[in-house]
């Protein structure tokens, strides 16, 4: 992915705990003999569609699409791709969507597609790539991410989950938290400590965790909104074969960085229209309920409208840059601005509505599969928005990273450099 560096700046990528620079893209491997173009791709897809009925068996269709190299075209030949430029993927997805073909429910398998797959591609053995990538892409196997722990949030490299060698394999003990989709996942990408006696980054190893193995217990984690989008995962004497280790022992942090690099800011999909986000809800309430208005709130609503529109245009510009192969660090600006904005818009909405705004739909511990930040009432929006400045990296850690990686300001002095993990205060 040489294009990443075309602008001369490394791209900032979001992660659930922190942000890392994408020093190198995740794609490796063979290119098709002929350079792939949008035109040749369309021909190839039309040829494929002639032989495979989009209305037929869903799984069969998806497997055939993978085998034809039309899954993720920037992946190598034989692993669902054609070694084509990544920017051509929208051509493929649009062509299949236009033909009414089934998709692989990309929102449901986002962690697999966005994080597990590029890591397996880059660090996996031939056997691991062969075994895992196809069912991952066809959504036969859902993946989750076993990184964060109660004691390792912003400081991910401090994870305490232990992996101890046992004959040919490993025994895992520990606790992970904030794990989306764990209750549906077949596999998890797992960061565990194999050597507590060395500095924290050096003692980590990366595994592919069998979520059906004995000793894996998934419990819903109820959040302030009352629902449980996430899980806690308890790992008690979980045995994993050595063939499930990804990368060398002690190289877990380097492998994890590939995962983190690929957890991009969610900017996929179509650009939002004006008032397409949470501001639209507030603006409609303002229009429809003149009796609620006050001069002070009018100015507040206008200020929020300006910020929302500025952020929307920032997203539009970022999309245009990415489409042109010029990624920059603007995604982290969007993450920070988005979190602050949703919190303020939803707070203003509750205030505008007064006592009516306090009425809540229910406090049931639902397990929503797709997050909808504006789908429920004002109190839900206000509460859920509190998570926006915590999930995907807290706004405070993100500001540190922007200050150091984007602006080049010096790092805060650290207490954990060169200290064995077991000797760190915790």
């Amino acid at each position, binding site marked *: 992915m040489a294009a990443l560096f075309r602008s001369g700046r490394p791209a900032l990528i979001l992660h659930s705990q922190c942000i890392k620079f994408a020093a190198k893209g995740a794609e490796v491997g063979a290119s098709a003999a002929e350079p792939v173009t949008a035109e040749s791709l369309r021909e190839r897809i039309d040829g494929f569609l002639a032989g495979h009925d989009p209305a037929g068996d869903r799984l069969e269709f998806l497997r055939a699409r993978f085998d034809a190299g039309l899954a993720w075209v920037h992946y190598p030949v034989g692993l669902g791709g054609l070694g084509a430029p990544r920017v051509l993927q929208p051509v493929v997805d649009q062509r299949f969507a236009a033909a009414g073909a089934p998709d692989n429910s990309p929102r449901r398998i986002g962690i697999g597609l966005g994080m597990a797959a590029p890591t397996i591609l880059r660090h996996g053995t031939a056997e691991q790539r062969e075994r895992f990538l196809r069912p991952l892409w066809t959504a036969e196997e859902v993946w989750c991410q076993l990184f964060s722990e109660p004691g390792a949030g912003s400081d991910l490299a401090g994870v305490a989950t232990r992996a101890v060698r046992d004959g040919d394999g490993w025994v895992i003990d520990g606790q992970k938290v904030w794990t989306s989709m764990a209750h549906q996942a077949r596999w998890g990408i797992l960061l565990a400590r194999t050597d507590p006696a060395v500095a924290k980054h050096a003692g980590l190893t990366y595994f592919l965790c069998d979520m059906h193995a004995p000793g894996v217990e998934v419990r819903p984690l109820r959040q302030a909104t009352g629902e449980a989008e996430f899980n806690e995962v308890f790992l008690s004497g979980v045995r994993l074969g050595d063939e499930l280790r990804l990368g060398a022992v002690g190289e877990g942090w380097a492998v994890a960085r590939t995962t983190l690099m690929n957890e991009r800011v969610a900017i996929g999909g179509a650009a939002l229209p004006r008032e397409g986000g949470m501001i639209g809800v507030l603006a409609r309430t303002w*229009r429809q309920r*003149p009796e609620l*208005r006050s001069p002070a709130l009018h100015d507040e609503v206008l200020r929020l409208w300006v910020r929302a529109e*500025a952020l929307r245009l920032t997203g539009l510009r970022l999309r245009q840059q990415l489409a042109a192969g010029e990624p920059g660090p603007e995604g982290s600006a969007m993450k920070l601005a988005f979190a602050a904005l949703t919190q303020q818009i939803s707070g203003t909405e509750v205030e505008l509505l007064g006592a009516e705004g306090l009425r809540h739909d229910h406090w049931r511990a639902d397990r929503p599969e797709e997050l909808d930040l504006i789908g429920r009432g004002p109190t839900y929006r206000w509460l859920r928005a509190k998570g926006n400045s915590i999930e995907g990296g807290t706004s405070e850690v993100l500001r*540190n990273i*922007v200050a*150091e990686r984007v602006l*080049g*300001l010096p790092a805060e002095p650290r207490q954990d450099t060169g200290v064995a993990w077991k000797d760190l205060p915790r």
Partner: protein
Amino acid sequence: MTLDLRYTEEQEQLRDSVRAMLADHAGWARVLKVAESPEPDDADLWRLLSVETGLAALAVPEHLGGAGATLAETAVVLEELGRAAAPVPYLGVAVAGQVLLHLSETDLLRELAGGGVVALAVPFDIGPAPAPPNGAAGPRLPDVEVSTAADGSPLLNGRVSSVADASRARVLLVPAGGALFAVEADAPGMRRTGVVSLDETRPLCDLAMWNAPARLLAAGDRAATALDAALVAGAALLASEQLGLAQWCLDTTVEHLRTRYQFGRPVGSFQALKHRLADLWVELVQARAVARHAVACAAAGDPDARLAASLAQAHNGPLAVRAAEECVQMHGGIGFTWEHPAHLYLKRAKSASVAYGTAARHRAVLATFADLAPA
């Protein structure tokens, strides 16, 4: 229509060359010297930008001696001029140029392309109206009365205060009695008085006219439309200047915090300061998007141009002030001295925040576009 909000390769090259030129000819010590001098602006720098490089007439068609470019290129130059706090009447000339383009005033456009300064004679805080000119009320303009000379030609009487970029103008475009007139700056009955104002890098002057002979350029809707389009363009272009100014403030503050040591550490390693600068950067990223959007809309004649210009001012005006204030504060004592350039940017940012309408005024404009009626 989706407008491209990125910079083109040509625009990046344009930026590089303007920045290099300003580094050589508009270092801050020179800017301060000009600001302290009785001269209203930097005549040498203006000659370089206009006569020698043609940058002052980027948006003027080639057959009239201009570069045949658009407001999007003009905006790139303004980013760099904002970055340098350069004392030249570039923005005012660009705005006057928009009036002339709308009225197809080819002679004046040729003069402008040759480096002549033409200024729109309105107070610096006049911004675009909430609705197109033939609809609701236009901007509040000072009363300038029109009378008729013995030979039937128009004469202007009245005062226009706080006009920017007009100190060196040879021709003034004066709105009066619902029409637009051209008045020679050295015409009998026209008096121009410099104002001591907050921002000496963009001097203001007061105009007084007693039977000043004028030439009618346009009347009625035609005049109102030309004036309105120029004010929309002015608000849009100013957002790019504010962006460049804010970027300088951020860059300079970052550099200071990297190299200034206190408590045995670079000051920039303190989280309290890092977070403020990170937040400023977040605002700047957005300022770039809204500024590019505003000039792209204005250049394309997009129906959103008025909204985009008001959005850009509502966002970038306060942002530039905040960037300059943070720059002063985070420099500590040195930032409050006359010897450090921070004060030039602080003054220019505050002055620019009222130019072409304050943020509050633009929010009121946006309220009409967004159908968000007041209480």
